[in-house]
């Protein structure tokens, strides 16, 4: 239980980081308004009442870019992880349940993906496909599904011959019923931990790709793109790097803490006791 207390601390630390970030952004947005308008005459201005953090090299309000970039990073990470978890779980379940050729095909595919670092795969895909939001999500899912598939397959193999599953089969329950009502609740804590950790990883991956110009459309402000654009003005205005960098670190740290908290407590919760 002591481990869980520490986990709880980490969980609430993660939550409060996210709440503080969201609260700060929402309050500034409420009082100052946001606009992504280009105003080239106002480029690289210092902080002023109109632009709380000043303006970037294209004369855009830095705070508005930060807000937009953070939301975009978050949305892409959530979407990519959601698709990865769903497709990875289904494939992993199919591999464990069916066995045989299905298992071989799916798991060798996963082995292949996991044999390479995620960024290399996504980078190669984006290099051929070119930047863009749907390409980016596809590339992230392509490198992301395999770890969930492996996790789900391993767990399903462990429980598929247990008595309660055999009982359900004895009652002629459908595969879908067993998967949804008997297996999914047991896997949920593990998958949740892995997925929250995955969000941190995907935010990192997405920002690295955007930083290299291979993520979103380079004209849209995203955190990685802002840091990349700030490199040209590193001597004049380091804030162009420090502000989006700070947002990025807070986001990633928040999700890592959340995952740590959920993981520690899920291991000592009532799920573990029942098994």
């Amino acid at each position: 239980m002591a481990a869980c207390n520490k986990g709880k601390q980490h969980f609430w630390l993660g939550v409060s980081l996210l709440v503080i970030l969201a609260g700060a952004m929402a309050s500034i947005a409420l009082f100052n308004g946001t606009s992504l308008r280009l105003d080239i005459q106002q480029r690289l201005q210092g902080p002023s009442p109109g632009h709380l953090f000043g303006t970037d090299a294209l004369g855009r309000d830095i705070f508005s870019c930060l807000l937009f970039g953070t939301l975009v990073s978050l949305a892409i990470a959530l979407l990519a992880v959601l698709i990865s978890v769903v497709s990875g779980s289904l494939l992993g379940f199919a591999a464990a349940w069916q066995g045989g050729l299905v298992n071989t095909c799916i798991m060798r595919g996963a082995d292949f993906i996991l044999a390479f670092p995620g960024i290399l795969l996504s980078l190669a895909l984006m290099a051929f496909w070119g930047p863009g939001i749907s390409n980016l999500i596809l590339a992230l899912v392509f490198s992301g599904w395999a770890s969930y598939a492996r996790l789900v397959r391993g767990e399903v193999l462990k429980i598929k011959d247990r008595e309660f599953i055999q009982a359900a089969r004895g009652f002629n329950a459908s595969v879908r019923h067993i998967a949804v009502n008997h297996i999914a609740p047991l896997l949920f804590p593990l998958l949740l931990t892995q997925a929250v950790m995955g969000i941190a990883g995907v935010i990192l991956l997405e920002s690295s790709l955007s930083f290299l110009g291979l993520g979103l459309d380079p004209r849209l402000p995203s955190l990685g793109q802002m840091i990349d654009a700030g490199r040209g003005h590193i001597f004049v205005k380091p804030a162009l790097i420090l502000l989006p960098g700070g947002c990025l670190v807070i986001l990633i740290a928040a999700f890592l803490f959340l995952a740590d908290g959920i993981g520690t407590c899920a291991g000592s919760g009532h799920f573990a006791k029942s098994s």
Partner: protein
Amino acid sequence: MNFFYLKKAVAFIVFLWTAGSMIFFLVHAIPGDPVVAMLGKMPSAEDVRRLTRSLKLDRPLAEQYAHFIKKTITMDLGESLVDRKPVADAIMNYFPNTVILAFSAMILSLLIAFPLALMAAFKKNSCWNILSMGFSAFGLAMPSFLLGLLLIILFSVQLKLLPVSGSGGPEFLILPALTLAISLSAFLTRTIYTTVANELRQPYVLLARAKGLSDVRIFFQHILKNALIPITIIIGLQLGALLSGTIVIENIFSWPGIGTLLITAVRQRDFPMIQGVTLFMAFFYLLLNLLIDMSYPFIDPRIRHGRLQ
């Protein structure tokens, strides 16, 4: 035992072949005409026809694929579209720099991670523990490209001690190697700590303590041998982070390695170069992993005698 090597070698070849095929089909999956995509905006019909012929894109897909495999096996990766020089030559020119950077970063990260992790494991509930766990949490949450830029702001812009970017003397190597080393050692510290802390709970350590051995001797004579396998596995896994890290870090510091080569090729839409560099990276990464897998029996006699898998 021989079966172990055989399995690893077969997996290596199959993965490499899959990676090659994937890269081949990716070029063909470029939306629209790949040649038009390569030539950029408004190419002339003559240019399109010439490039199509020279890349053999007017041939049937199966023939192109066979040609691609044959050429790749003979280490012929085609010519760059930008300067018409062989891709393999460019890779060989740039690759040594990547090796220098990656190698110095690896050494540096071991030098950072081992002392931190060992102090934390041996002196539990001390400030070392907090320091090393704080360091590794910091490193895990900090993207390497951001860390690189922060180090530039600190050492080059504020203190004016080191050059911002480029290559030349050893002073150009310090910042990129340090950046990579810090992001690597974050994970390494945590893993070495967990492994060593786990070994410290084993009965043989209790016995060694009872014999009156010092912590230093316990570590070098007893723990290190047992902890080496998990640590080697992690270092092997870290090679992936190292390789992908170099892509980003080289780009920040304009270090002339294959990461810079790849990103430049992407910006110039130089597809033969992208194809060649990604294939080479995949090859090199798989090769390193194969070597690491094959080294386990040498490191741990229990695996050598088939008692532990």
